[in-house]
Structures are given as C-alpha cells and as structure tokens.
C-alpha cells in the first residue's frame, strides 16, 4: 500500500527514511524534496502524482511527513494515518515533534515505524498501546520474560477492546468531563450571518478500576424524543452530526441513540459533534471605518457581549485589520488594551475579562503613510478569539454520566464547559 515513509526537514533533508515496498528509490524522494522546498507556499496540493508515483504529504510545523505509493490507495486513509503517526510521535516526545527530537530519537522512530505499518498497510496506531511495548531505551526485561503478560498484550492488541488493558486499579475512582465548543462564525459586511456552526468535543480523563461500562446522556433532541417523560418546552437541541471514539458501541447508538462505552485509560476524546441550528452567538460587533481626512483613517468599534450576566468571557482578543501603511495609531478603549502590531497588520485589542451583557467600545485614529503605489486595500475580516467558561454556544448540556462496574464502586465525576472562538470572523 504505502511504499515508503520519510520525515523531511525545512531544508529538504531526509531525517527518517523507511521503505516498505521495493518500488521506490531514494532519488525520487530527493527530487520531491527539492521540489517541495522550491514551492514553499501552501498553494501546492498535498498529493502529487508523478509518473504513477504518488507523493502524499502533510506538514507539521517545519517537518514534512511524506508517504509514497505506486498503487491506487485510499488517499484519505493515508493522510489520516500520517496524522495519527504524528500524534504517536508527539505522545512519545511530550508533545513536541521537531527536528531535534527526531534526530535524537531516530532509533525509537524506526521502531515505531516498524510496528505501525507492515508492508505499507496501517496496523496499530494507538500511542497508549504502543507505549506498552515500545519505549525509548528498550522495555524492561520483566515484560519480555513474562510470557503470560506478553500473551495478554497481544490479545489486547488484536482483540475487540484493544484500547483498554485488563487489570487496572485506582484507589480513588474519578472521571473528568470537558465539553469544549468552538464557534465558527462568518458575518457579512451587512451584518447578516453567512455561516454559523459549533464544532464541539467531549474529552474525558478516566481513572477507573477494572472494565467499567459508561453511559452518557445529553440534551439531544433525538435521544430525548425517545424518552417520553420530557415535555416539549425542554425538548433539547438538534445535533447535526456526531463522531465517536472507537470505544463507543456504534451499532447500539445507531439503534437506540444511547452512547455506551468502555473508556480507555487516561485522557481521550470521546466524541466530536457539529451543530448548525440555534447557536447563541456570544458577541455583537459593530465596526465603522471612515476616512476622516486624507491619510487619516478612523475606526470606531463596538462590541456587546450577549451571554448571561453571571458569566465571564476571558482572554478576549480582537484583531482589527488596518492598512499596511498605517504608521501612527492612537487608540482609546473603554476596557482592556489595544495595540498596533505591524507584522499582523492589525490593531490587537486584548481584554482579560468581560462580563455578560456589557457593551464596550474602541476608537482608533490611524495616520496613513504615503505609498508609492496607489493600491486598494482589501480588508481582511475582523477576528475575535475568546474563551467563555461555563457556557456552551450550542446550549448542549450533559444530563447524566453513569459508570457501571461489577465491583460497584463509587465514582467522582467532574464536569467543565468551555466555549472558544474558532474561525470567528466579521467581514468589513
């Protein structure tokens, strides 16, 4: 399937090169590297086919990970695999994947590459599992000698519940739930909503003993519709689409819309969802650009927070685009600090904390420098980044989380909600 994998640095040097099939040679890779380095911009498509050889790559910061193949593979699979491979590497390198740690731990990477692909066909690509038998500097002798444990490992690897090893024990049984929503919003020049969408994810950190079966329920309209006791005014929200971690029993969900799972140990993303109806837009923005004199631009900006009064938005960053030739920016704001940042070509307005139902304003006077060429400035959209704890833009709520294990222990459950700004843009 995949003929070879390489890790390439910014200069186009090969850091790691592993061949799985004999139909590719190093020179072809080197040629590709040269080409990639020559066209650095993101205009190049991630898949290139030269003479029946396909080069499929992704870029993680400065590292390019490249897979080659000569057959008609499923491209989406190869790409997804490359992403998972980076996740694995990051798990091993404490969240980093850069040239340094690749050079330092190349032995480990080769070992990983040997396990995740066989004959170019993706195999086990779960960082937690791999760490059970591949570790920097070799695993402890104990595991290698204890055949019983090894057998258990291979059965876990190939079994139906490959994500959770047997025999876990915790003194205190705890489970943490994080509901994180990011709002993608596009508002037109005239103030109409062009697109609004919430992409959410439910992340779990589980510290549970044994093989617990969990069940989670949300105020999802379809699910609640099946349980008659909810009346109409509390009819829940419409979720367009949900995607689940491998641990969720999908056939059961399809049939009864009940989410049951045996959680992996530690941190994982249980599900992601997408909602496009009835979204609570957290901010109302009014921006006026006016050229008061020649070479002098005035921006008046008003933002109103339209969430509940006892909720606070935090780390709000408003990026207000200004022309390239802005030289002297004087800004006055009712709250927070605004600063002209040249490399961003924007005035950045930072607000640490903002209560709900409050209107704030910013005025900027901008001196425009003289330019040699009269060029029309194409205004990029205004962007807002923010975090609002205890708030969900979609209105999603977790109604219950049950943990059932045969020993019948008590579980402490913690829950947290957060809404973030995703692609939150106002066209000007």
């Amino acid at each position: 399937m995949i003929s070879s994998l390489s890790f390439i640095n910014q200069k186009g040097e090969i850091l790691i090169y592993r061949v799985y099939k004999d139909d590719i040679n190093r020179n072809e890779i080197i040629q590709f590297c040269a080409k990639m380095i020559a066209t650095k911009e993101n205009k190049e498509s991630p898949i290139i086919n030269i003479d029946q050889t396909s080069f499929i790559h992704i870029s993680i910061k400065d590292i390019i990970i490249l897979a080659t193949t000569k057959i008609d593979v499923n491209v989406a699979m190869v790409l997804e695999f490359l992403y998972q491979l980076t996740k694995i590497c990051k798990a091993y390198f404490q969240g980093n994947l850069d040239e340094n740690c690749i050079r330092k731990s190349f032995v480990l990477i080769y070992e990983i590459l040997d396990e995740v692909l066989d004959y170019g066909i993706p195999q086990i690509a779960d960082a937690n599992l791999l760490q059970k038998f591949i570790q920097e500097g070799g695993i402890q002798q104990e595991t290698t000698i204890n055949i019983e444990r090894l057998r258990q490992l291979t059965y876990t690897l190939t079994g139906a519940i490959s994500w959770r090893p047997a025999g876990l024990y915790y003194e205190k049984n705890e489970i943490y739930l994080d509901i994180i929503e990011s709002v993608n919003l596009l508002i037109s020049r005239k103030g109409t909503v062009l697109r609004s969408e919430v992409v959410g994810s439910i992340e779990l950190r589980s510290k549970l003993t044994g093989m617990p079966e969990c069940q989670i329920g949300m105020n999802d309209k379809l699910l609640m519709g099946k349980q008659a006791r909810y009346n109409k005014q509390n009819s829940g929200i419409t979720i367009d689409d949900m995607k689940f971690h491998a641990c969720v029993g999908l056939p059961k969900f399809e049939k009864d819309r009940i989410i049951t799972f045996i959680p992996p140990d530690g941190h994982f993303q249980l599900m992601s969802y997408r909602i496009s109806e009835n979204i609570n837009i957290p901010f109302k923005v009014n921006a006026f650009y006016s050229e008061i004199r020649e070479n002098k631009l005035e921006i008046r900006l008003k933002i109103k927070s339209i969430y509940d009064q006892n909720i606070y938005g935090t780390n709000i960053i408003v990026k207000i685009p200004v022309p390239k030739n802005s030289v002297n920016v004087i800004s006055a704001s009712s709250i927070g600090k605004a600063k002209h940042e040249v490399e961003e070509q924007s005035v950045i307005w930072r607000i640490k904390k903002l209560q709900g139902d409050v209107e704030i304003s910013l005025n900027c006077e901008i001196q425009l420098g003289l330019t040699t060429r009269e060029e029309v400035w194409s205004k990029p959209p205004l962007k807002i980044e923010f975090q609002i704890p205890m708030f969900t833009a979609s209105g999603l709520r977790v109604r219950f989380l049950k943990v059932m294990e045969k020993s019948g222990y008590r579980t402490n459950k913690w829950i947290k909600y957060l809404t973030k700004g995703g692609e939150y843009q106002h066209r000007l």
Partner: protein
Amino acid sequence: MAYFGNNPQRGELQELYADLNDLNFEKKKEAVKKVIAYMTVGKDVSELFQSVIKCLEFNDIEMKKLIYLYIVNYSRQKPDDAIMVIQNFRKDVRKSENPLVRALAIRTFGCLRVPKLNEYLIEPLKDCIQDDDPYVRKTAVLCVPKVFEVSPDICPALLEQLQKLLEKESNALVLANLIQSMREIEVVSGKQLINLNQKIIQKLLLAVDECIEWGQIFILDYLATHNPQDSKQAEIIIERTLPRLSHINPTVTFCAVKVILKYLDFLDNGELVKNLCKKVAPSLISLLSWNQPEVQYTILRNISLILQKFPILFENEVKVFFCSFNEPYYIKYEKLDIMVRICDSKNFGQVLNELLIYLNEADPHFVRKTIKSIGKIAITYDKALEKAVSILVEFAKNVQQPTEPVQELLMQMQLIYKKSKQMYKYDESLKIIYSIVDYANEPESKSACAWILGEFGEYIPKSVEKMKEYIDNFQMEDRLVQLQLLTSAVQLYLKYPSQCATIIQQLITSAKDSFNPDVRDRTYIYWRLLSTDPEVVKNLVCFNSGVVSNFSKDLRLWETQDLVLALENMGSISNLFHKLPHQLYKNIKIKINNQHDVKIYKGEEKPDTQPQPQAQNQQDGSNQNNKKDQQQQQDIDLLSFDEPPSNININNNNNNKTDVFELI
C-alpha cells in the same frame, strides 16, 4: 560527488567495525545505532554486513529490530551474506515463546526480497499462519503478499491456506488484514482470490464492529467493490454500515458513505433511499469542514462525483463550500470549483454575493479563478447575467494595473457579450470595460479586446484610431490576436468604410505575408471577399443581435456511464485526479460496468428547469448555422487558394468594387 558525500570516511567505517566487534555490549549497541544513522542519511554501510549480523546473538529486542532494519535494507546487495541470517530467523519463528519476537522475525523475513531465500521461508510461514496467537497470525498473513511479489511460483500452497483461513478465522483484526493482503495479491496477479459468499459477508460485517479503524477501512473498501445479489442483501449491508458514519476517523466515515451510496442503486424501496440520503448528508458535511486541511482536500476532490450522482445530498447546502479567509489556497480552489457546479437557477444570487467577496483576496490566481467562475455562472444562467455584469464592472472600475485577474475579466466579458450583446448597455459596462483594454497583455485577453472593438465599434469613441494602434503593432502580436484583429478590422471597416480604408489596407499588406498559414489564409479570404461582395462579408463577420453562440451549460465532470465505477473507487488516488483507475495506472485492467442505466438521485423536480433545454436547443441550432458559415468560409478558401494574386488583379480591374482595392 558520491565519493565524498555518500561514503563515510574509511576511518569512520574502521572505527565502527572495531566497535561492532567489541566485547562490551553497550559499545556494540551504540555502534549499531550509528550504522543505522549513516544508513538514514544515505551513506553506504553495506561493508559492515557481517559484523552487524554477528550482533544478533544478543537477546536484546531493540538491537534486534535495528539489525533487522539493516538487513532488510542491504539484503539484496548481499544475498550470500543474508543467507547466514536465515538460521537466526528460523530459530526465532520456531523456538521463541515470545509472540512479539515470532512476529518480528516473520515480518522481517518477508521483507528480504531475495528469491532464493524465500524458499526457506515457506515452511515457517505456513506454521505462523496457523499460530495460536492472533498477533503472529495477522503478521504472517501480511507476509504472504511480500513473498508473492518476489516469487509467485512458490506460493500456490500459501494462497490456498489463506483462502481456508478466510473461511474459519474468527479474529476481526486478522480477518481485516487477510482481506487487505488478498486484495494486494489480486492486484499483482490479476486473478480473483477472494470468493465472497453469504457467510463471509456476514463475517466481515461482524468484524467491522470489532476491529481497529484501519481494519474497518480495509473491509469497507472491499465491500464497496462488491455487487450485492439482491435488494435484500444490499439492505443488510447498508444497515450494518450505517453506524460507521459516526466514527471519529474521517476515512472510516468516508468509506461508510461510499459503501452506502454504492448499494443505494440496488435498493427497491424508494422511501428507504430517501431516508438514507438524509442520514448520509450530515456526516459528509462534517467531513467537509474537517480540521485537517489535507483530509478536507481529498474529500472535496471527491465531491464533484457525489454531486453529480447524488445532487440531493447537497440541496440548499452551498454555504458549506464558502471559503474561509485563512484556508490554504488548494482548498479554496476546490471550493470555488464546487460552488460553480452546485450553483443553480435558484441560488446563483447567493453564490455571486459570495464570489464578490473573493475579488478582494490577495492572491491573483485565486481572484482570476473567481472572475472565471462569475463569468461561467453568468453564461449558464440567463437570470444571473445582470448581477454578474455589475460585479465585474465594479471590479473593472478599480483596475489600475495589468494584473492577471484583469486578463480574465476581459475574456469573460467577451463571452458575456457574445451570449447577450445587449449587456453592453447595462451599467455602462462597455464604457468601463473599454477603459481598461490597455491593460491586456495575454493573447487571449488581447484578442478579447480586439473582438470588443470590432463588435462594438460604433459605440466606442475613436474606435478607428484604436484599431490603427493595434494594427501598427500587428507583427508583434500572437497568432490568436492577429486572427481576431483581421476579423475585427474588417468588421470596423464595414461600419466605417471611408475612415478605415487606409488601415485595412495597411493590415492586409502586413498580414498577407505572414509566416503563419492561418493568418495568411484569413487575410486572403477577407481580401477576396471584400473585393467581390462585401455583403457576404457582412454576414460572415457580424453577429446578428440575439444570436447566441454555443455555451456549454454542462458543468459535469464525469461521463455518466463512468459514475458507478468511479463511485466504487471513491477516495482513491485516481479519483482524486478525477480519473478512473485504468486511466491513471497502465497496469490496471479496464473494469466493465454492467449497470447500464445510471441512477441520478435528485431532489424534488422543479418546474423551472424545463425551459432551459429548449434554450439550449436553440443555441445548438444557431451554432449549427455558425458551423455552416464556417464551412462556407472554408469552401471559399479552397476554391481560391491556387492563384490568389492573379485573381486580385482581376478584381482590381473591376472598379465598381469597394474603394480599398482602388488603392492597391
């Protein structure tokens, strides 16, 4: 170059050699690591083969893996030395109690790719396929295609074993890998290996629920190539695939979409089909906004196919394809392309409003493509004409440089005027477009300008002077521009015979000796015609108002009969390039599509689509007329080709003809 770059210095090799043979284990291990490091950067360390192999004696897994890596890399250069390792492998496979070691040995063994070594492999491999441990089994199963690729002649027994395993295997992961490895062999051998029956389908469907994500992909991918016996079977397979739409791995979801869409064709129950479409659409839309741009890109590249066969899925969903400001351009291009395809007589206003925003983007290629898209929509939908023209005119007002988008703008305006000459009045479009003709610098855009000048000469002030300017530079122009200039100049001449007499004269003089036969021919035709019967020329070169030349309303990408086959291959590389597998890969056989009627899944039929085909018929009709005209033109050309100069002399004698020729 190679002498310095690719070979480690003599001294380095010797040092490594010493370390490898050192008695100290740690030193050995470090040396092995160094050897691998050299290998990675492309230096040749094959000379150390024997010393490296010797290190295999130690029972250290990490080192073993490294050495195996080394062996795989150099086994073909040193087949004779590689034979020495065989014993080691066999020992590992047969004797080791550690399943990981057994699997590692069999995995590496398969990668040696030396035909004469493979004979030693068959027996241990057979054992491993029957191993108790599923991890060893799945590794062994994947080893078979490796051996088959190098020495297919020793494999028949193994293949038979695989087929038997397919019947009885119960572990989902082994089963998934088994399917994948048998498919790989099928590709190499060109023969069918998997005999699918009801029982195996049942098993595969069960395995989908149990195995890891990649395994699910292998199985779904395979099921998509299968044709169900009847509606019942199709229904079962769809039903079992549906839950996969909620999988977190986008490829699993996408494969599930593929399987469901493929099997829809086989369902009898129309209501069920509708419901299924409703279920598939939101999953697909989630994939379109997937946060990994590369994955998103592949999905987008496949959308045109889905769009063509299942327009129903994206009804009212054009917003999904709106571009975001900081997306990579390769995604923006795809979205733009899809927006034009998805545009129809109802939502064109929405699409045009969105495209208007993109005209402000910084990237000239992207803006150019946006303009092209606007033009396409205008030409396809009569109702969109006015809005499109006003957008383009507004853009033209701000033009100050001969940029790439300006070239496209001129070309698209030409097409729009061709479609509807009346548009020149709208929004003063002609005036504003004409004010930017000097920014044309590509042959196509220049020829568009020349066309506009000829076509609208009477509405353009000082058009004759402008034409003269063009003709002064005639020799320097591209062939395309020259040809258009000839026609346009004649057009203008017919409109202002007296003012243009000199320039047409000048034009003919410089064009008749052109090195380009097309230009020469056209010059002579016009020359001859003008001197015989200017009325004929008028019919030839002047468009009658209301006549619309041919515009393809058809934005389809795929041939209808290819749709079924393309759908089976959705997600593949060939599909990404909008081709069928055999069109991209020479070694793939052409698969014949047995389904003759391709079903297209539309939403509710709208009455207003009705009039358009008629309009198209008209267009076709007029187009045929045009063709006829061209035909005539050629006929004339052929008749007069022999001795043009003498004929001209004759014409010259006929003084009652047009005044140009008196001047010669």
